[in-house]
Protein backbone atom coordinates (compact mmCIF):
# COMPACT_ATOMS: atom_id res chain seq x y z
CA UNK A 1 0.00 0.00 0.00
CA UNK A 2 2.77 2.43 0.96
CA UNK A 3 4.60 1.55 -2.28
CA UNK A 4 1.42 2.25 -4.23
CA UNK A 5 0.99 5.66 -2.58
CA UNK A 6 4.68 6.42 -3.23
CA UNK A 7 4.13 5.63 -6.94
CA UNK A 8 1.16 8.02 -7.05
CA UNK A 9 3.16 10.73 -5.26
CA UNK A 10 6.14 10.29 -7.61
CA UNK A 11 3.79 10.38 -10.60
CA UNK A 12 2.26 13.63 -9.38
CA UNK A 13 5.78 15.07 -9.21
CA UNK A 14 6.58 13.88 -12.79
CA UNK A 15 9.29 11.44 -11.64
CA UNK A 16 10.08 9.14 -14.56
CA UNK A 17 10.41 5.81 -12.67
CA UNK A 18 6.77 6.06 -11.52
CA UNK A 19 5.61 6.09 -15.15
CA UNK A 20 8.06 3.51 -16.48
CA UNK A 21 7.34 1.24 -13.49
CA UNK A 22 3.61 1.23 -14.27
CA UNK A 23 4.22 0.92 -18.03
CA UNK A 24 6.36 -2.17 -17.66
CA UNK A 25 4.33 -3.94 -14.96
CA UNK A 26 2.56 -7.14 -15.96
CA UNK A 27 -0.81 -5.98 -14.63
CA UNK A 28 -0.37 -2.40 -15.88
CA UNK A 29 -3.98 -1.98 -17.02
CA UNK A 30 -5.37 -3.28 -13.71
CA UNK A 31 -3.09 -0.91 -11.79
CA UNK A 32 -4.25 2.03 -13.90
CA UNK A 33 -7.87 1.02 -13.46
CA UNK A 34 -7.45 0.85 -9.67
CA UNK A 35 -5.83 4.30 -9.57
CA UNK A 36 -8.71 5.95 -11.46
CA UNK A 37 -11.35 3.94 -9.58
CA UNK A 38 -10.01 4.61 -6.07
CA UNK A 39 -9.49 8.34 -6.72
CA UNK A 40 -12.93 8.60 -8.36
CA UNK A 41 -14.56 7.01 -5.29
CA UNK A 42 -12.51 9.15 -2.88
CA UNK A 43 -13.52 12.38 -4.63
CA UNK A 44 -17.18 11.35 -4.42
CA UNK A 45 -17.07 10.71 -0.63
CA UNK A 46 -18.21 14.19 0.52
CA UNK A 47 -21.19 13.93 -1.86
CA UNK A 48 -22.05 10.45 -0.54
CA UNK A 49 -21.92 11.62 3.09
CA UNK A 50 -24.04 14.68 2.25
CA UNK A 51 -26.63 12.58 0.41
CA UNK A 52 -26.87 9.92 3.14
CA UNK A 53 -27.23 12.55 5.89
CA UNK A 54 -29.87 14.43 3.86
CA UNK A 55 -31.71 11.17 3.18
CA UNK A 56 -31.79 10.20 6.86
CA UNK A 57 -33.35 13.52 7.97
CA UNK A 58 -37.05 12.98 8.72
CA UNK A 59 -38.02 16.37 7.27
CA UNK A 60 -35.86 16.11 4.14
CA UNK A 61 -38.67 17.03 1.72
CA UNK A 62 -39.85 20.10 3.70
CA UNK A 63 -36.25 21.31 3.88
CA UNK A 64 -35.81 20.76 0.13
CA UNK A 65 -39.01 22.70 -0.59
CA UNK A 66 -38.03 25.63 1.60
CA UNK A 67 -34.60 25.72 -0.05
CA UNK A 68 -36.12 25.58 -3.57
CA UNK A 69 -38.55 28.43 -2.77
CA UNK A 70 -35.73 30.54 -1.32
CA UNK A 71 -33.62 29.86 -4.43
CA UNK A 72 -36.45 31.05 -6.70
CA UNK A 73 -36.82 34.29 -4.71
CA UNK A 74 -33.05 34.79 -4.82
CA UNK A 75 -32.90 34.14 -8.59
CA UNK A 76 -35.74 36.63 -9.22
CA UNK A 77 -33.94 39.26 -7.14
CA UNK A 78 -30.71 38.70 -9.07
CA UNK A 79 -32.56 38.95 -12.41
CA UNK A 80 -34.47 42.09 -11.39
CA UNK A 81 -32.15 44.51 -13.31
CA UNK A 82 -32.78 42.53 -16.55
CA UNK A 83 -36.56 42.37 -16.09
CA UNK A 84 -37.19 46.11 -16.31
CA UNK A 85 -39.64 45.82 -19.24
CA UNK A 86 -41.80 43.10 -17.67
CA UNK A 87 -44.83 44.58 -15.84
CA UNK A 88 -44.60 43.71 -12.14
CA UNK A 89 -48.09 42.15 -12.09
CA UNK A 90 -47.18 39.72 -14.87
CA UNK A 91 -43.89 38.80 -13.25
CA UNK A 92 -45.58 38.06 -9.93
CA UNK A 93 -48.17 35.88 -11.70
CA UNK A 94 -45.43 33.87 -13.44
CA UNK A 95 -43.52 33.37 -10.18
CA UNK A 96 -46.72 32.38 -8.37
CA UNK A 97 -47.41 29.80 -11.11
CA UNK A 98 -43.89 28.36 -10.85
CA UNK A 99 -44.20 28.14 -7.07
CA UNK A 100 -47.62 26.48 -7.32
CA UNK A 101 -46.23 23.84 -9.68
CA UNK A 102 -43.30 23.22 -7.36
CA UNK A 103 -45.56 22.95 -4.32
CA UNK A 104 -47.64 20.41 -6.28
CA UNK A 105 -44.50 18.35 -6.92
CA UNK A 106 -43.37 18.52 -3.30
CA UNK A 107 -46.86 17.61 -2.03
CA UNK A 108 -46.76 14.47 -4.15
CA UNK A 109 -43.21 13.71 -2.98
CA UNK A 110 -44.42 13.92 0.63
CA UNK A 111 -47.30 11.55 -0.11
CA UNK A 112 -44.93 9.10 -1.82
CA UNK A 113 -42.55 9.35 1.13
CA UNK A 114 -45.41 8.38 3.46
CA UNK A 115 -46.30 5.28 1.42
CA UNK A 116 -45.32 1.87 2.83
CA UNK A 117 -42.29 -0.03 1.48
CA UNK A 118 -41.03 -3.54 2.14
CA UNK A 119 -37.63 -2.37 3.45
CA UNK A 120 -37.39 0.24 6.25
CA UNK A 121 -37.95 3.79 4.96
CA UNK A 122 -34.53 5.46 4.72
CA UNK A 123 -33.00 2.40 3.02
CA UNK A 124 -34.05 3.52 -0.45
CA UNK A 125 -32.38 6.91 -0.08
CA UNK A 126 -29.23 5.27 1.33
CA UNK A 127 -29.22 2.75 -1.55
CA UNK A 128 -29.66 5.58 -4.02
CA UNK A 129 -26.80 7.57 -2.51
CA UNK A 130 -24.48 4.53 -2.51
CA UNK A 131 -25.50 3.51 -6.05
CA UNK A 132 -24.87 6.99 -7.43
CA UNK A 133 -21.54 7.26 -5.60
CA UNK A 134 -20.37 3.85 -6.88
CA UNK A 135 -21.44 4.78 -10.43
CA UNK A 136 -19.45 8.03 -10.49
CA UNK A 137 -16.04 6.59 -11.48
CA UNK A 138 -17.68 4.74 -14.39
CA UNK A 139 -19.14 7.90 -15.92
CA UNK A 140 -17.66 10.13 -18.59
CA UNK A 141 -16.51 13.71 -18.13
CA UNK A 142 -17.86 16.79 -19.87
CA UNK A 143 -14.37 17.68 -21.08
CA UNK A 144 -11.59 15.26 -22.17
CA UNK A 145 -9.65 14.10 -19.09
CA UNK A 146 -11.68 16.55 -17.00
CA UNK A 147 -12.21 14.17 -14.06
CA UNK A 148 -10.91 10.98 -12.47
CA UNK A 149 -13.41 8.74 -14.27
CA UNK A 150 -13.00 5.59 -16.35
CA UNK A 151 -15.12 6.96 -19.21
CA UNK A 152 -12.62 9.61 -20.23
CA UNK A 153 -9.54 7.56 -19.26
CA UNK A 154 -10.59 4.81 -21.71
CA UNK A 155 -12.73 6.82 -24.16
CA UNK A 156 -10.23 9.59 -24.81
CA UNK A 157 -7.32 7.23 -24.20
CA UNK A 158 -8.02 5.01 -27.24
CA UNK A 159 -7.79 8.06 -29.52
CA UNK A 160 -4.57 9.28 -27.92
CA UNK A 161 -3.20 5.74 -28.26
CA UNK A 162 -4.09 5.74 -31.97
CA UNK A 163 -2.46 9.12 -32.64
CA UNK A 164 0.59 8.18 -30.57
CA UNK A 165 1.00 5.04 -32.71
CA UNK A 166 0.62 7.10 -35.89
CA UNK A 167 3.30 9.47 -34.59
CA UNK A 168 5.71 6.56 -34.15
CA UNK A 169 4.88 5.44 -30.62
CA UNK A 170 5.91 1.95 -29.53
CA UNK A 171 3.77 1.47 -26.43
CA UNK A 172 1.39 -1.36 -25.59
CA UNK A 173 -2.25 -0.78 -24.73
CA UNK A 174 -1.90 -2.05 -21.17
CA UNK A 175 1.32 -0.11 -20.51
CA UNK A 176 -0.12 3.10 -21.98
CA UNK A 177 -3.30 2.90 -19.88
CA UNK A 178 -1.23 2.07 -16.79
CA UNK A 179 1.15 5.02 -17.15
CA UNK A 180 -1.48 7.58 -18.15
CA UNK A 181 -3.77 6.66 -15.21
CA UNK A 182 -1.50 8.82 -13.04
CA UNK A 183 -3.33 11.84 -14.53
CA UNK A 184 -6.05 11.07 -11.96
CA UNK A 185 -3.79 11.85 -8.97
CA UNK A 186 -4.19 15.68 -9.00
CA UNK A 187 -7.95 15.19 -9.26
CA UNK A 188 -7.90 14.19 -5.56
CA UNK A 189 -8.07 17.99 -5.09
CA UNK A 190 -11.66 17.75 -6.34
CA UNK A 191 -12.41 16.25 -2.93
CA UNK A 192 -12.86 19.91 -1.89
CA UNK A 193 -15.23 20.68 -4.77
CA UNK A 194 -17.99 21.43 -2.22
CA UNK A 195 -16.01 24.41 -0.82
CA UNK A 196 -17.25 27.60 -2.52
CA UNK A 197 -14.66 29.38 -4.75
CA UNK A 198 -11.72 27.28 -3.47
CA UNK A 199 -13.29 24.10 -4.90
CA UNK A 200 -13.48 25.66 -8.37
CA UNK A 201 -9.90 26.94 -8.24
CA UNK A 202 -8.58 23.56 -7.09
CA UNK A 203 -10.55 21.79 -9.84
CA UNK A 204 -9.05 24.12 -12.46
CA UNK A 205 -5.56 23.49 -11.10
CA UNK A 206 -6.15 19.71 -10.99
CA UNK A 207 -7.22 19.67 -14.66
CA UNK A 208 -4.04 21.26 -16.04
CA UNK A 209 -1.78 19.38 -13.62
CA UNK A 210 -3.48 16.10 -14.64
CA UNK A 211 -3.16 16.97 -18.33
CA UNK A 212 0.58 17.57 -17.95
CA UNK A 213 0.95 14.20 -16.19
CA UNK A 214 -1.04 12.55 -18.99
CA UNK A 215 1.41 13.96 -21.58
CA UNK A 216 4.33 12.65 -19.53
CA UNK A 217 2.66 9.21 -19.26
CA UNK A 218 2.10 9.11 -23.03
CA UNK A 219 5.70 10.13 -23.66
CA UNK A 220 7.14 7.43 -21.36
CA UNK A 221 4.85 4.59 -22.45
CA UNK A 222 5.32 5.26 -26.19
CA UNK A 223 8.96 6.37 -25.99
CA UNK A 224 8.04 9.63 -27.70
CA UNK A 225 9.48 13.11 -27.17
CA UNK A 226 7.36 15.39 -24.97
CA UNK A 227 6.46 17.48 -28.07
CA UNK A 228 5.14 14.45 -29.96
CA UNK A 229 3.34 13.16 -26.87
CA UNK A 230 1.68 16.58 -26.46
CA UNK A 231 0.59 16.43 -30.09
CA UNK A 232 -0.84 12.91 -29.60
CA UNK A 233 -2.79 14.10 -26.55
CA UNK A 234 -4.16 17.25 -28.19
CA UNK A 235 -4.87 15.93 -31.69
CA UNK A 236 -8.03 13.91 -30.85
CA UNK A 237 -9.65 16.99 -29.27
CA UNK A 238 -8.51 19.22 -32.16
CA UNK A 239 -9.81 16.77 -34.79
CA UNK A 240 -13.15 16.50 -32.94
CA UNK A 241 -13.35 20.30 -32.79
CA UNK A 242 -12.54 20.58 -36.50
CA UNK A 243 -15.19 17.99 -37.39
CA UNK A 244 -17.75 19.84 -35.23
CA UNK A 245 -16.90 23.21 -36.84
CA UNK A 246 -17.02 21.79 -40.38
CA UNK A 247 -20.29 19.99 -39.59
CA UNK A 248 -21.87 23.10 -38.07
CA UNK A 249 -20.71 25.27 -40.99
CA UNK A 250 -22.06 22.75 -43.49
CA UNK A 251 -25.39 22.58 -41.69
CA UNK A 252 -25.62 26.38 -41.46
CA UNK A 253 -24.83 26.66 -45.20
CA UNK A 254 -27.52 24.10 -46.05
CA UNK A 255 -30.10 25.93 -43.95
CA UNK A 256 -29.12 29.27 -45.51
CA UNK A 257 -29.39 27.83 -49.05
CA UNK A 258 -32.77 26.23 -48.35
CA UNK A 259 -34.08 29.45 -46.77
CA UNK A 260 -32.91 31.62 -49.68
CA UNK A 261 -34.46 29.10 -52.09
CA UNK A 262 -37.76 29.24 -50.22
CA UNK A 263 -37.86 33.04 -50.31
Amino acid at each position, binding site marked *: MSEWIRTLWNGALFRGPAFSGLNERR*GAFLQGLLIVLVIGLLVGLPGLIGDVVAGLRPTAIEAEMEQAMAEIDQAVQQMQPFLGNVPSGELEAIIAQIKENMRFGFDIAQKVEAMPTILPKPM*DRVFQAI*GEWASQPFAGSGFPLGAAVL*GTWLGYGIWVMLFAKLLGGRGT*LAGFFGATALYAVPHTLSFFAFVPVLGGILGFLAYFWGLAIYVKGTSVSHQLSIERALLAVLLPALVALLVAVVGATGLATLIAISMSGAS
Partner: protein
Amino acid sequence: MGNRTLSLGLVLRALFLDNDAYDQLRDDDNPFMEGLFLVVIIGAITALLNLIGQLLAWAGTPSMSAIKDAVWQAFPTMQWWSQMSGNATALEQFKQYYDMGWQIFPALFGAPDPASAAANIVLWPLVAVLSWLIYGTLAHLFARMLGGAGQYGQTLGTLSLSFTPLLLRGLGFLPYFTVGAVMNTWQLICRYKAIRSAGQMSWGRAVWATLLPFLVYLVLWVVIGVVGGLGLTAAISAMQGR
Protein backbone atom coordinates in the same frame (compact mmCIF):
# COMPACT_ATOMS: atom_id res chain seq x y z
CA MET B 1 -13.55 -34.37 -24.72
CA GLY B 2 -10.98 -31.60 -25.20
CA ASN B 3 -8.97 -29.63 -22.69
CA ARG B 4 -10.65 -26.83 -20.76
CA THR B 5 -8.72 -23.59 -21.16
CA LEU B 6 -11.28 -21.27 -19.61
CA SER B 7 -10.83 -20.32 -15.98
CA LEU B 8 -11.66 -17.35 -13.81
CA GLY B 9 -8.00 -16.34 -13.92
CA LEU B 10 -7.97 -16.37 -17.74
CA VAL B 11 -11.19 -14.32 -17.86
CA LEU B 12 -9.76 -11.71 -15.48
CA ARG B 13 -6.46 -11.56 -17.36
CA ALA B 14 -8.36 -11.00 -20.63
CA LEU B 15 -10.44 -8.29 -18.96
CA PHE B 16 -7.25 -6.51 -17.93
CA LEU B 17 -5.80 -6.78 -21.47
CA ASP B 18 -3.17 -9.49 -20.88
CA ASN B 19 -2.00 -10.71 -24.31
CA ASP B 20 -1.32 -14.25 -23.09
CA ALA B 21 -4.98 -14.78 -22.15
CA TYR B 22 -6.11 -14.17 -25.74
CA ASP B 23 -3.31 -16.29 -27.18
CA GLN B 24 -4.12 -19.14 -24.78
CA LEU B 25 -7.78 -19.31 -25.87
CA ARG B 26 -6.78 -18.99 -29.55
CA ASP B 27 -4.59 -22.08 -29.17
CA ASP B 28 -7.30 -24.16 -27.45
CA ASP B 29 -8.46 -27.31 -29.30
CA ASN B 30 -12.05 -25.97 -29.54
CA PRO B 31 -12.05 -22.20 -29.01
CA PHE B 32 -15.61 -21.87 -30.41
CA MET B 33 -17.20 -24.05 -27.70
CA GLU B 34 -15.17 -22.39 -24.95
CA GLY B 35 -16.26 -19.00 -26.34
CA LEU B 36 -19.93 -19.96 -26.53
CA PHE B 37 -19.85 -21.17 -22.92
CA LEU B 38 -18.18 -17.95 -21.77
CA VAL B 39 -20.59 -15.61 -23.59
CA VAL B 40 -23.65 -17.43 -22.20
CA ILE B 41 -22.30 -17.62 -18.66
CA ILE B 42 -21.34 -13.91 -18.59
CA GLY B 43 -24.83 -12.94 -19.79
CA ALA B 44 -26.60 -15.18 -17.26
CA ILE B 45 -24.44 -14.35 -14.20
CA THR B 46 -24.57 -10.59 -14.74
CA ALA B 47 -28.35 -10.74 -15.28
CA LEU B 48 -28.72 -12.67 -11.99
CA LEU B 49 -26.60 -10.13 -10.07
CA ASN B 50 -28.57 -7.31 -11.67
CA LEU B 51 -31.81 -8.96 -10.54
CA ILE B 52 -30.60 -8.77 -6.91
CA GLY B 53 -30.06 -5.00 -7.28
CA GLN B 54 -33.46 -4.53 -8.89
CA LEU B 55 -35.18 -6.53 -6.12
CA LEU B 56 -33.48 -4.43 -3.41
CA ALA B 57 -34.43 -1.17 -5.17
CA TRP B 58 -38.00 -2.44 -5.67
CA ALA B 59 -38.29 -3.37 -1.97
CA GLY B 60 -37.24 0.14 -0.97
CA THR B 61 -39.65 1.93 -3.34
CA PRO B 62 -43.43 2.36 -2.91
CA SER B 63 -45.65 0.62 -5.47
CA MET B 64 -45.75 2.40 -8.85
CA SER B 65 -49.54 2.08 -9.09
CA ALA B 66 -49.91 3.77 -5.66
CA ILE B 67 -47.69 6.65 -6.83
CA LYS B 68 -49.70 6.90 -10.05
CA ASP B 69 -52.96 7.13 -8.04
CA ALA B 70 -51.47 9.72 -5.66
CA VAL B 71 -50.49 11.98 -8.58
CA TRP B 72 -53.92 11.59 -10.17
CA GLN B 73 -55.67 12.45 -6.90
CA ALA B 74 -53.50 15.56 -6.50
CA PHE B 75 -54.45 17.06 -9.89
CA PRO B 76 -57.74 18.66 -8.67
CA THR B 77 -55.63 21.03 -6.52
CA MET B 78 -54.17 22.60 -9.69
CA GLN B 79 -55.82 25.68 -11.24
CA TRP B 80 -55.97 24.24 -14.77
CA TRP B 81 -57.86 21.17 -13.57
CA SER B 82 -61.13 23.07 -13.01
CA GLN B 83 -61.02 24.33 -16.62
CA MET B 84 -60.33 20.89 -18.09
CA SER B 85 -62.62 18.81 -15.89
CA GLY B 86 -65.63 20.62 -17.37
CA ASN B 87 -64.89 19.05 -20.76
CA ALA B 88 -65.53 15.29 -20.63
CA THR B 89 -63.73 14.55 -23.95
CA ALA B 90 -60.63 16.47 -22.90
CA LEU B 91 -60.62 14.73 -19.51
CA GLU B 92 -60.94 11.30 -21.15
CA GLN B 93 -58.09 12.06 -23.56
CA PHE B 94 -55.92 13.39 -20.72
CA LYS B 95 -56.54 10.18 -18.74
CA GLN B 96 -55.51 8.08 -21.75
CA TYR B 97 -52.21 10.01 -22.15
CA TYR B 98 -51.65 9.81 -18.39
CA ASP B 99 -52.03 6.00 -18.37
CA MET B 100 -49.83 5.67 -21.44
CA GLY B 101 -47.15 7.88 -19.85
CA TRP B 102 -47.08 5.67 -16.75
CA GLN B 103 -46.42 2.65 -18.94
CA ILE B 104 -43.42 4.32 -20.63
CA PHE B 105 -41.73 6.79 -18.27
CA PRO B 106 -41.01 4.75 -15.10
CA ALA B 107 -38.81 2.38 -17.14
CA LEU B 108 -37.08 5.29 -18.90
CA PHE B 109 -36.25 6.94 -15.57
CA GLY B 110 -34.84 3.76 -14.07
CA ALA B 111 -37.73 2.72 -11.82
CA PRO B 112 -37.03 -0.74 -10.37
CA ASP B 113 -38.49 -3.49 -12.54
CA PRO B 114 -37.75 -7.00 -11.20
CA ALA B 115 -39.88 -8.67 -13.93
CA SER B 116 -37.73 -7.23 -16.76
CA ALA B 117 -34.60 -7.99 -14.75
CA ALA B 118 -35.74 -11.63 -14.42
CA ALA B 119 -36.43 -11.81 -18.17
CA ASN B 120 -32.85 -10.61 -18.74
CA ILE B 121 -31.55 -13.93 -17.41
CA VAL B 122 -32.67 -15.40 -20.74
CA LEU B 123 -32.47 -12.25 -22.85
CA TRP B 124 -28.93 -11.08 -22.09
CA PRO B 125 -27.20 -14.40 -22.96
CA LEU B 126 -29.31 -14.63 -26.14
CA VAL B 127 -28.48 -11.10 -27.30
CA ALA B 128 -24.83 -11.60 -26.36
CA VAL B 129 -24.58 -14.82 -28.43
CA LEU B 130 -26.22 -13.16 -31.44
CA SER B 131 -23.97 -10.11 -31.21
CA TRP B 132 -20.92 -12.38 -30.78
CA LEU B 133 -21.79 -14.45 -33.87
CA ILE B 134 -22.67 -11.51 -36.15
CA TYR B 135 -19.74 -9.30 -35.16
CA GLY B 136 -17.40 -12.28 -35.06
CA THR B 137 -18.32 -13.41 -38.58
CA LEU B 138 -17.87 -9.92 -40.03
CA ALA B 139 -14.62 -9.33 -38.13
CA HIS B 140 -13.27 -12.70 -39.30
CA LEU B 141 -14.08 -11.88 -42.94
CA PHE B 142 -12.37 -8.49 -42.71
CA ALA B 143 -9.41 -9.96 -40.85
CA ARG B 144 -8.94 -12.58 -43.59
CA MET B 145 -9.20 -9.90 -46.29
CA LEU B 146 -6.54 -7.91 -44.47
CA GLY B 147 -4.18 -10.90 -44.27
CA GLY B 148 -5.21 -12.39 -40.93
CA ALA B 149 -4.17 -16.01 -40.37
CA GLY B 150 -6.76 -17.13 -37.79
CA GLN B 151 -9.42 -19.81 -38.28
CA TYR B 152 -13.11 -18.91 -37.84
CA GLY B 153 -13.32 -20.76 -34.53
CA GLN B 154 -10.20 -19.01 -33.26
CA THR B 155 -11.60 -15.55 -34.09
CA LEU B 156 -14.89 -16.35 -32.35
CA GLY B 157 -13.08 -17.96 -29.42
CA THR B 158 -10.83 -14.98 -28.72
CA LEU B 159 -13.70 -12.55 -29.39
CA SER B 160 -15.70 -14.20 -26.61
CA LEU B 161 -13.12 -12.72 -24.23
CA SER B 162 -14.21 -9.26 -25.40
CA PHE B 163 -17.45 -9.88 -23.53
CA THR B 164 -15.59 -9.85 -20.19
CA PRO B 165 -16.14 -6.06 -19.68
CA LEU B 166 -19.86 -6.90 -19.58
CA LEU B 167 -19.08 -8.35 -16.15
CA LEU B 168 -19.29 -4.73 -14.97
CA ARG B 169 -23.05 -5.06 -15.34
CA GLY B 170 -22.81 -7.52 -12.46
CA LEU B 171 -22.13 -4.54 -10.20
CA GLY B 172 -25.81 -3.88 -10.73
CA PHE B 173 -26.36 -5.90 -7.53
CA LEU B 174 -25.89 -2.45 -5.96
CA PRO B 175 -29.28 -0.75 -6.40
CA TYR B 176 -29.22 2.35 -8.66
CA PHE B 177 -25.76 1.49 -10.01
CA THR B 178 -25.16 2.52 -13.66
CA VAL B 179 -22.10 1.64 -15.74
CA GLY B 180 -22.38 4.09 -18.63
CA ALA B 181 -20.45 4.04 -21.89
CA VAL B 182 -17.21 2.83 -20.33
CA MET B 183 -18.28 -0.78 -20.89
CA ASN B 184 -18.59 -0.31 -24.68
CA THR B 185 -15.19 1.38 -24.98
CA TRP B 186 -13.58 -1.33 -22.89
CA GLN B 187 -15.25 -4.00 -25.01
CA LEU B 188 -13.96 -2.31 -28.18
CA ILE B 189 -10.40 -2.45 -26.83
CA CYS B 190 -10.83 -6.15 -25.97
CA ARG B 191 -12.22 -6.80 -29.47
CA TYR B 192 -9.10 -5.27 -30.97
CA LYS B 193 -6.89 -7.45 -28.77
CA ALA B 194 -8.91 -10.56 -29.69
CA ILE B 195 -8.79 -9.92 -33.45
CA ARG B 196 -5.09 -9.10 -33.34
CA SER B 197 -4.36 -12.28 -31.39
CA ALA B 198 -6.51 -14.56 -33.59
CA GLY B 199 -5.25 -13.12 -36.88
CA GLN B 200 -1.70 -12.49 -35.66
CA MET B 201 -1.82 -9.19 -37.51
CA SER B 202 -0.07 -5.83 -37.31
CA TRP B 203 -1.78 -3.25 -35.05
CA GLY B 204 -2.95 -1.13 -38.00
CA ARG B 205 -4.67 -4.01 -39.80
CA ALA B 206 -6.20 -5.23 -36.55
CA VAL B 207 -7.66 -1.73 -35.96
CA TRP B 208 -9.32 -1.84 -39.38
CA ALA B 209 -10.66 -5.36 -38.88
CA THR B 210 -12.10 -4.23 -35.52
CA LEU B 211 -13.81 -1.12 -36.87
CA LEU B 212 -15.04 -2.27 -40.30
CA PRO B 213 -17.91 -4.44 -38.92
CA PHE B 214 -19.31 -1.26 -37.32
CA LEU B 215 -19.19 0.42 -40.74
CA VAL B 216 -21.27 -2.48 -42.09
CA TYR B 217 -23.77 -1.97 -39.23
CA LEU B 218 -23.93 1.75 -40.08
CA VAL B 219 -24.53 1.09 -43.79
CA LEU B 220 -27.18 -1.48 -42.90
CA TRP B 221 -29.01 0.97 -40.61
CA VAL B 222 -28.89 3.67 -43.31
CA VAL B 223 -30.29 1.20 -45.89
CA ILE B 224 -33.03 0.09 -43.47
CA GLY B 225 -33.85 3.74 -42.75
CA VAL B 226 -34.04 4.69 -46.44
CA VAL B 227 -36.07 1.60 -47.43
CA GLY B 228 -38.37 2.07 -44.42
CA GLY B 229 -38.80 5.76 -45.24
CA LEU B 230 -39.60 5.00 -48.89
CA GLY B 231 -42.05 2.27 -47.88
CA LEU B 232 -43.77 4.62 -45.44
CA THR B 233 -44.01 7.38 -48.06
CA ALA B 234 -45.44 4.91 -50.61
CA ALA B 235 -47.98 3.63 -48.08
CA ILE B 236 -49.09 7.17 -47.17
CA SER B 237 -49.45 8.25 -50.79
CA ALA B 238 -51.38 5.02 -51.58
CA MET B 239 -53.76 5.76 -48.69
CA GLN B 240 -54.23 9.34 -49.89
CA GLY B 241 -54.88 8.11 -53.46
CA ARG B 242 -57.72 5.87 -52.24
